């Protein structure tokens, strides 16, 4: 197992290198020049050139990438061309809000979606199944920002229960912290709940048709026990897989959600950086996102061994 983990961790290195090269290449060919934005409309060409040189943007592709990659390997992701702040510092500053949002979204999604999937499967073809699956279609179809605005309008503006926007760290009080995450997490979890619930339902349907379930029923085991103990345990693998795959959806959803709810997280950081062509920040955040994705999927693979003792690495 340890050998497997080390191998997988080592495999992240070429993955990250390819991601870094790909992103760097895209940004290199993309139109736009941060020097033009920094200098403003009244800058002379000489000033623009000086700014470009001071930022190292006048260098050819290979030396620029090589220098960035060498520094990145040593943990130096460079500095923002606009704020002159170290990128690693900016990322560290933005991780807690995004992580909080994603964890709460995951919790809400799992707590809601798994029972929904199980109950829908248990009532296959019935009105509960149809209701839940229709809701799942709605969850897939409604864009995160629409759900976000609706939630903010109802719970923040009309009812006044929760704040409209912002983020407070847990050190400022648990409620202060949670109250600003509830609406964004609910908005973001809509699609995720739909995804997990559908997979949970299909996995449960497959398990419920197995012989051992029929035997359990014949023995008079309670319905809830059959569903949540015998069947669900054997249906967890596809559910756990989809949770891992869905992290990518969560990351992209966080970009929108953080903008709608004014959360200073990584999603907003990368959007702002893209709009300004703040190359070091874009590269740094994309690296963090891709590393997170690789790690989450490693964790999911490891979780398989706990859920199914037959799986060995």
């Amino acid at each position, binding site marked *: 197992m340890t050998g497997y983990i080390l191998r997988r961790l080592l495999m992240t290195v070429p993955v990250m290198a390819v991601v870094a090269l790909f992103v760097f290449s895209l940004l290199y060919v993309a139109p736009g020049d941060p020097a033009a934005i920094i200098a403003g409309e009244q800058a002379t060409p000489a000033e623009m050139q*000086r700014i470009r040189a001071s930022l190292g943007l006048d260098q050819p592709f290979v030396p620029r990438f090589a220098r960035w990659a060498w520094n990145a390997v040593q943990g130096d992701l460079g500095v923002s061309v606009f704020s002159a702040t170290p990128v690693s510092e900016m990322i560290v500053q933005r991780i807690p809000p995004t992580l909080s949002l994603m964890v709460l979204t995951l919790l809400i999604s799992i707590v809601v979606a798994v029972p929904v999937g199980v109950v829908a499967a248990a009532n296959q073809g019935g009105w509960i199944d149809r209701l839940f699956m229709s809701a799942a279609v709605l969850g897939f179809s409604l864009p995160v920002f629409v759900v976000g605005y609706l939630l903010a309008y109802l719970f923040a503006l009309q009812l006044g229960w929760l704040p409209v926007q912002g983020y407070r760290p847990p050190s400022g009080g648990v409620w202060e912290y949670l109250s600003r995450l509830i609406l964004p997490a609910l908005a973001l979890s809509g699609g995720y709940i739909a995804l997990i619930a559908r997979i949970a339902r299909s996995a449960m349907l497959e398990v419920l048709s197995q012989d051992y379930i029929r035997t359990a029923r014949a023995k008079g085991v309670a319905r809830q026990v059959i569903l949540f103990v015998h069947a669900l345990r054997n249906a967890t693998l596809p559910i756990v897989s989809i949770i891992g795959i869905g992290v990518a959806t969560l990351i992209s959803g966080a970009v929108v959600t953080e903008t709608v709810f004014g959360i200073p997280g990584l999603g907003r950081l990368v959007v702002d950086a893209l709009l300004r062509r703040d190359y070091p920040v874009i590269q740094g955040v994309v690296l963090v996102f891709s590393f997170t994705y690789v790690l989450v999927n490693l964790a999911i693979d490891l979780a398989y061994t706990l859920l199914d003792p037959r799986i060995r690495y």
Partner: protein
Amino acid sequence: MHRRQFLSTTAAAMGLFAMPAIRPAGAADRRVLKFVPQADLAVLDPIGTTAYVTRNHALMVFDTLYGVDDKNQPHPQMVEGHVVENDGKLWRLTLRPGLQFHDGTPVLARDVVASINRWGKRDIYGGALMAVIDDLSAPSDRVVEFRLKKPFAHLPAVLGKGAPTIAAIMPERLAKTEATTQITEIVGSGPYRFLAKERNPGALNVYEKFAGYVPRDGAANYLSGGKVAHFERIEWHTLPDASTAAAALQAGEIDWWEQPTSDLTPLLRGNADIRVQVQDTTGFAGVMRFNHLQKPFDNPAIRRAFFGGILQSDYLIAAVGEDKALWRDGLGFFHPDSPMASKAAIPAGKPDLARVKQDLAAAGYKGERVVMLATADFPVINLMSQIAADMFQKVGVNLDLQVQDWATVSSRLQSREPIDKGGWSVTCNFAAGIGMFNPAAHSYLRSNGEKALFGWPTIPAIEQLRNDWFDAPDLAAQQKICEEIQKVAYAETPYIPLGLYYQPTAFRADLTGMLKGTPLFYGLRRA
């Protein structure tokens, strides 16, 4: 569902809705002001960019030697006074006693010298001052001497102006930084101190009242007078989404949203707890800018022909709506509230597109492709561009309207290449009205070719008249020169004015003492 189950579920739902408000009270701390700026404060160096959000930040943190009032007249600010000798060629400025920087060091004349030298390399109006300076020195800690090549009566106005960059005074150790390199420490001597440790780039910037600031006597008037800070702490929250900002203002989570979008202002106006009003009465001017280096707009007759197709109100309504209180048409090349404004040569009558078509043909337009650059990132630019594009198409221009993100547009505007190599032909934009009060700081009017703003017009007559304006002996002479500039501008067309519009600001009704002009935080308090 059973009856009992239904009833208990409904009761629980009702109870949930009847819960008291558990949201923390909005911007409740009376000593704290929460402000949403027009854009993210990306660049902190006061001369690092011409972005207005940076200028607004600079006005909090830095002080200036002089400050203009709301009539654009300069008054002493950091200086106690000045004497002018040697027929106007020697200015001796004496600093007020007790001035200190936020790092606790005193403001000395050598700090002023270094700050002005750095700023003068970037600022267009400052450049005019630097061009006449023979020697700038600090003979003592409180005295700054300007030895000039020729008299320059505009010195206080240049050093006290508010746009696009201010002549911010900073410690010499920072001011010695190369002008194109950003300073890494924000230390000024203004009424508010920047708290770098609390900065979250792209999200939050925090300022604290500077206890060591000694305001001048008298009431504050725009950038002049007594800058008294009432709030202990000011937080700038960047909220990129307009709907979120509007909701936060309504919920009382923020106190002031600098630039509400025109589609949301009616909603905010309907809220008794919110005031929506125009604070900056100098507004913004729409401009249609041609690329003078490329065909077909290297031909002044072709540029001039488009005046006949412009109805400024069309552009202004598109930009800010039907409310006439929010715009003024009939704009010439100078701000209508400036003493330099005149009606000279302003075209009268309604647009005549058939005539424009004839004039274009007569001027030699042969159907060359015209690339109009626009951006959807700034709705005003996009909407004005759509109106302009419609007019261009109606008069038979072979138009290629390209709407791109601002990062792409802003870099493409710097390209002097032909359109088949990524260049451009024409674009619509807006500029602060305050910059159009006179020819000195009027960047769109500058016509010094390669050194001019993008579009790069070369119109020697305008440049000569601008130089004459600096030397004009009195207001009447200045006005006469500006009238001439306007006539030349209508003939040569460095750009086409598209009208003046006003940007309202929205704030909680309990704020009082808000000054006219750009967002200023001194004098402001909670009722």
